[in-house]
């Protein structure tokens, strides 16, 4: 009898006995993510489920990420199959109004320049000794686009998934802090003061409906490996612009996106097991991700300067910073920064254009990257 008591009681203590220092650290990390999400309003929709998932997976003996654990089931069903990021993309397409970039198609180039950090960081990661595919996954943090980063990493470097997604989402919310100093350092006072008038609507409905179709077909032919990404975001956008399937548009932008965000967040958190996450490598990934976003901003602003010169001073180089796809934070940063130097300057719509181009740019960059890898026989 007494022995049974003791045994039964030991069951309640087993969790504590198996708690390792790495678990304790990760539970604290999870709490920090929750704090950032709840108190600091850093991407709460993602950081709250990620932080909680991280806590769950670090409680010993519950085995939530072992076969048949519920987190494992969600992870296998949605992340390993790449379904979650793709469903999110349908929602992003349905939510995003691309007309600011269609008003001024030259801003598509800024959306390309904002992806430069991906490729530069990839090179940096290689130089630091990461394998080719790991370097690709680290570089893609520079897409500044959560679902793209998760899609690529889950497919080709799943062991880095936790680090890459945490970097992608936390830096995205730090865009308002990271970008302004770089923007100021690379432009002159005169350039920052350039006034750009917003244009009256000039995009017809036909153009807005044809846009997703053309991008899908053309982009798909150039970079077939990225078609899942491109195709889903464009499907969402076609549904939005055609206006014929309002129910599907609403469902994609709200219900589906919300449900998937929850499942995505919790399963990303579940990859943050202390044994895997607490390595020097993770810190390097976080550092490189930061570098990637800085380089993106710098390249965007530099191309902005080129456009400033070629347009004979009509384009404000600040909008180049919105070429990264942190939508719409980065456009807001540009608007605020521009107004700081000239109160009568409302760059918002132009910055939104560059920012929407950045959305397309990050997907195209990832697609091109995968197709180049395929061409070289690496994947």
């Amino acid at each position, binding site marked *: 009898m007494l022995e049974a008591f003791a045994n039964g009681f030991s069951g309640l203590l087993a969790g504590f006995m198996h708690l390792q220092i790495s678990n304790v650290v990760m539970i604290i990390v999870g709490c920090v993510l929750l704090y950032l999400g709840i108190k600091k309003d850093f991407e709460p929709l993602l950081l709250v489920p990620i932080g909680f998932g991280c806590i769950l997976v670090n409680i010993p003996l519950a085995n939530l990420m072992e076969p048949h654990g519920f987190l494992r089931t969600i992870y296998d069903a949605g992340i390993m199959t790449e379904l979650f990021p793709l469903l999110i993309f349908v929602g992003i397409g349905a939510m995003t109004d691309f007309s600011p970039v269609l008003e001024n198609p030259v801003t598509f180039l800024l959306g390309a320049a904002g992806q430069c950090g991906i490729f530069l960081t990839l090179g940096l990661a290689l130089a630091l000794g990461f394998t080719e595919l790991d370097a690709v996954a680290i570089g893609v943090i520079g897409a500044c686009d959560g679902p793209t980063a998760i899609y690529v990493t889950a497919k080709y470097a799943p062991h880095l998934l936790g680090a890459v997604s945490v970097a992608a989402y936390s830096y995205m919310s730090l865009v308002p802090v990271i970008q302004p100093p770089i923007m100021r350092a690379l432009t002159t006072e005169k350039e920052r003061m350039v006034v750009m*008038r*917003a*244009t*009256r*609507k000039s995009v017809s409905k036909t153009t807005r409906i044809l846009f997703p179709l053309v991008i899908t077909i053309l982009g798909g032919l150039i970079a077939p490996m990225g078609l899942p990404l491109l195709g889903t975001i464009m499907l969402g956008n076609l549904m939005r612009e055609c206006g014929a399937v309002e129910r599907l548009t609403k469902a994609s932008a709200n219900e589906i996106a919300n449900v998937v965000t929850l499942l995505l967040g919790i399963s990303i958190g579940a990859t943050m097991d202390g044994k895997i996450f607490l390595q020097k490598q993770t810190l390097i990934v976080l550092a490189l991700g930061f570098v990637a976003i800085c380089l993106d901003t710098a390249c965007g602003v530099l191309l902005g300067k080129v456009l400033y010169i070629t347009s004979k001073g009509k384009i404000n180089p600040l909008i180049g910073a919105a070429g990264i796809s942190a939508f*719409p934070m980065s*456009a*807001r940063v540009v*608007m605020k920064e521009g*107004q700081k130097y000239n*109160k*009568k300057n*409302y760059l*918002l*719509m132009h910055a*939104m254009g560059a920012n929407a181009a950045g959305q397309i740019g990050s997907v195209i960059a990832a697609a091109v990257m995968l197709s180049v890898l395929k061409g070289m026989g690496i994947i």
Partner: protein
Amino acid sequence: MKIELTSPIPGKIMKVIVSVGEVVNEDDEVMKIESMKMENPIYAPAAGTITAIGVKENDEVEVDDLLLVIEEGG
């Protein structure tokens, strides 16, 4: 001289801060327009007296819609 302030961005008027007859300085905040879920302050283009206001709160505005008229100087 009359100066017309037209809307620099499309959006919804969140707040009209000034009223007709009020004297404003250049770069004083006169309105707030909500655009792309962001609150955008709109500043006076010149110093003077507000002689007309073309919008009211919760109006949807397009680019180039008239917001207000300022009689410069005075």
